[in-house]
């Protein structure tokens, strides 16, 4: 209990900090609207040129619902951990964070957890409600909401571990920009954050099935948008996400341990 308390204290501070920067919240909402307008017209054009109402098993409406929710999810999932770590490493502030009475990976995670909460409440939930009202009944309101919660939690963990692994690479490269851009491109594309995975060619989809990325956006959204009757599908997806979360944690933990040793031995 006490252990959890020290982590939750970080969450609490993160929430206060986040709300302090309320202007940035407003700017983020505005930026989203711009982005959503853009993809609205892009996809409208795609469906118009295809000449049929259903492309790859998705209608224009389901595609838009998926993409709007993916954007909302992206806003609270993307915590710029790689930037954070890179800045810590470049400025040498990492020395201070290494001597906090908790492990760096935990410290970092719980430090950003406050903005998870804020962004979930202030961007994801309102977006979801708006989509719900606008599309009137396309999204089922039932057991699927319940499945969505563990899926999102696992997605947050997997996303964090991937970021942490990429951030650890900064210990070697001492630069952040290129690595971060590459990571972002790979993750957003292969996870289905920018284009629904249904639109991918079959071969690529087979590859993606064996990668952890789809557990971040595709799995939670698929579960949310399903009616929740196919218990088998739900359980398989959750089990796969869970396995990825465990595996990625182990990898990132080991990688960090080896790497930080490098720094403390050879100097940074």
């Amino acid at each position: 209990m006490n252990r959890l308390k020290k982590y939750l204290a970080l969450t609490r501070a993160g929430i206060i900090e986040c709300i302090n920067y309320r202007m940035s919240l407003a700017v983020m909402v505005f930026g989203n609207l711009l982005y959503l307008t853009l993809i609205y017209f892009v996809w409208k054009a795609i469906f118009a040129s295809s000449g049929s109402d259903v492309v790859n098993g998705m209608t224009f409406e389901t595609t838009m619902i998926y993409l709007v929710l993916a954007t909302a999810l992206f806003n609270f999932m993307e915590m710029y951990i790689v930037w954070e770590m890179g800045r810590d490493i470049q400025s040498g502030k990492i020395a201070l964070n290494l001597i906090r009475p908790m492990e760096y990976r935990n410290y970092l995670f719980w430090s950003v957890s406050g903005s998870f909460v804020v962004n979930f409440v202030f961007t994801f939930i309102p977006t979801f409600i708006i989509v719900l009202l606008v599309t009137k009944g396309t999204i089922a309101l039932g057991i699927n909401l319940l499945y969505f919660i563990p899926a999102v939690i696992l997605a947050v963990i997997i996303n964090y571990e991937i970021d942490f692994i990429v951030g650890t690479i900064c210990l070697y490269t001492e630069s952040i920009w290129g690595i971060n851009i590459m990571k972002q491109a790979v993750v957003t594309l292969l996870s289905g954050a920018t284009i629904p995975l249904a639109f991918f060619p079959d071969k690529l989809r087979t590859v993606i099935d064996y990668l952890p990325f789809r557990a971040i956006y595709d799995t939670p959204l698929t579960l949310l948008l399903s009616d929740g009757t196919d218990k088998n599908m739900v359980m398989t997806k959750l089990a796969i996400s869970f396995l990825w979360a465990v595996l990625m944690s182990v990898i990132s933990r080991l990688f960090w341990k080896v790497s930080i040793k490098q720094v403390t031995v050879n100097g940074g």
Partner: protein
Amino acid sequence: MEKMIELKNITKEFKVLNRREGLKGSFQDLFSRDYKIIRAVDDISLSVGQGEIVGFLGPNGAGKSTTIKMMTGVLEPTSGELMVNGRIPYKNRTANSQEIGVVFGQRSQLWWALPLVESFKLLKDIYQIPQKDYDDMMELYGGLVNFDEILHKPVRQMSLGQRTLSDILAAFLHNPKVVFLDEPTIGLDVAMKSRIRELILELNRQKNTTVILTTHDMGDVDALCERIVIIDKGKMLYDNDIQHLRRFFGSYRTLKIRPGEDMKEVEEHLEKELAGMDVRISHDDEWISILINEEQIKVLNVLEMVQEKHEIKDMQLEEISTEDVIKKIYREGV
């Protein structure tokens, strides 16, 4: 006295890539395996008891910060034995950090956007400080500093002095056994420096906390430390009390004069008058600096000497600098 810190033949080496010049050189560096080894800390042995305040003195790049980083557990020594509070600091960083406090120069460990009191509450939870200890500490702090002006101010709106003050308070908050202060007074004005020094001294007295601080300000040393360790180029030059060190700087002052006429003339005149005495004269573009041993001749006499014949536009009196002390130690031995 209980031993708090124990260093035995500590050495720390860094591997650094030999960088080449220019664009072509940068490209070659991409594939270079040409490393050189830099010895930042060279065979330092030291033992510090509980409640001591030890000042690490030395010019920039002398190895002070590296030594501190090893004692806090951030860096691992290349060779030698190191114990802090009965623990090897880099082996168990998390447990070790419960019992140390750190202020690293101008980097703040506080939460930028939060009012100071929120940072304190957060530290209370992170370090799991019992409510009663926390309240006692806050009461103690309230008596030592003017809390009203900083407690509800977000850290990013603080002046550098207030931030340093807050950082020091934060470092002592969980009542650690050892506090490391890396250049705590850097960049502060004289009044703030003295407030910070008083605060450190008072906390050390009340809590019997061991304090290790690095500085290149002789004033810090004068006000705080019973014991001085001088480090230069990674080697320990001096480890003794301050009284001994006074031999090297106590009776020395630097008089700086900006003459209204030709500098050369003034300098030559002084050199002639002061020949045979323990005085060193040098100059830069504007100032003539005269390092004077006051046991032999008083600063005022020198000033008079100049004023008789020359016009003085401006003058300054400076305490001897760390660099001068180190130069003297090199020249004369301990």
